């Protein structure tokens, strides 16, 4: 790891000031992805801006028909949150299957969504629930936010502060993990919301995407059998030593079926 300076601001305004002052500064939340990347010297930040001292970025609250999760809320807190468990159990479940306990004790929702790793879990819930990504400057609809592998609508110096999830009628998540690395091979998040059915695939392609054939099928008939026969095209999906694009495409149908079963 190259050396760097370290700052720990206590307000969003101070963090944004620090991040805007130098294009080579990087924010660190839980650090469970950033620190391994720094060890590989994939990044050479001049200084890190630690967001863990900013109280306003933490916590979960329910207001009306939405759940707001602060960017620095850790996976373990999402998993155990009474608000999340009662309003969006699929989101609480998702948190339980991220990494291992030690990762969940440190990793944060904001870090995961800002990084947009193709193997991350939360992006499928954010897109699948039609959530809103709130930054220090603006509100971004999930449909506009994810822009492919490690790419989002966030601008340099812009800080993700919270995510607002509309509470769905029902939702479910299922993923197949690589047996060795435990990273997702293909995952599917399904949700029945007041604005319609959404089906989102993660882990199988370079970024999260909506599976519109399955959305139509579930709109007509919300049942596992409705998606079981729908084939995902393999074009554009990831192909590597862990699995071919065709295998991942097959997994999408299987995971969709399980996710609908779990949603009930």
């Amino acid at each position, binding site marked *: *790891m*190259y*050396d*760097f*300076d*370290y700052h*720990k601001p206590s307000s969003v305004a101070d963090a944004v000031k620090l991040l805007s002052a130098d294009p080579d500064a990087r924010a*660190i939340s839980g*650090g*469970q992805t950033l*620190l*391994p990347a*720094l*060890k590989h010297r994939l990044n050479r930040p001049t*200084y*890190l801006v*630690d967001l*863990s001292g900013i109280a306003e970025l933490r916590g979960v609250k329910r207001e009306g028909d939405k759940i707001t999760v602060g960017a620095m809320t850790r996976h*373990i807190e999402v998993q155990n949150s009474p608000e999340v468990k009662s309003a969006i159990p699929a989101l609480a479940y998702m948190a339980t299957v991220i*990494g*291992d*306990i*030690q*990762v969940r*004790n*440190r990793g944060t929702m904001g870090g995961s969504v800002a990084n947009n790793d193709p193997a991350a879990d939360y992006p499928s819930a954010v897109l699948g629930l039609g959530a809103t990504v709130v930054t220090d400057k603006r509100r971004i609809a999930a449909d506009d936010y994810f822009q492919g592998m490690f790419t989002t609508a966030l601008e340099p110096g812009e800080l993700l502060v919270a995510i607002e999830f509309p509470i769905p009628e029902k939702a479910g998540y299922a993923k197949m993990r690589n047996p060795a690395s*435990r990273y997702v091979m293909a995952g599917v998040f399904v949700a029945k919301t007041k604005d319609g059915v959404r089906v989102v695939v993660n882990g199988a392609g370079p970024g999260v995407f909506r599976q519109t054939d399955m959305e139509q099928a579930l709109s007509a008939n919300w049942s596992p059998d409705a998606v079981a026969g729908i084939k995902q095209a393999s074009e554009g999906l990831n192909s590597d030593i862990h699995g071919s694009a065709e295998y991942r495409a097959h997994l999408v149908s299987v995971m969709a079926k399980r996710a609908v079963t779990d949603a009930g």
Partner: protein
Amino acid sequence: MPQVTLTVNGKNSTVEVEGRTLLVELLREKLRLTGTHVGCDTSQCGACVVHVDGESVKACTILAVQVDGGQVTTIEGLAAADGTLHPMQEAFREYHALQCGFCTPGMVMSAIDLVQKHPEGMSEREIREGLEGNLCRCTGYHNIVKAIAAAQDVMHGKRSELARAAE
């Protein structure tokens, strides 16, 4: 160079570090607490697990500066001053939950956090799933799981001492 003040196993320390110094480097190289091991250095194996403010973390994937002001417990801090082992350490000994011992400090620290997070008690399957972040290449995990199952009863006050290990 940044200064970090932290409490390790109940003792206050102020240490000069670099921004990039990892917690595990501070513990092993500055404080000479070498019970915490470095196995993979890629946050997979769990040999470096310690507790920060009561929760298990991989000390190879957290910076020393991030722990400024924090409370750290390592394997050296578990036993009582008179040498009485923590129930989890005692269970690992009683059930022979180790062979080479390299993963053991991390296993014990993870297991304690796991038991503390499940006051209702865990099934064998839940214990196995809970150990996802710790790799052992010798034991096949079998006796580790038995030890944790026995220790949780003691830690939750369901037994005053360990049941004798199965033959």
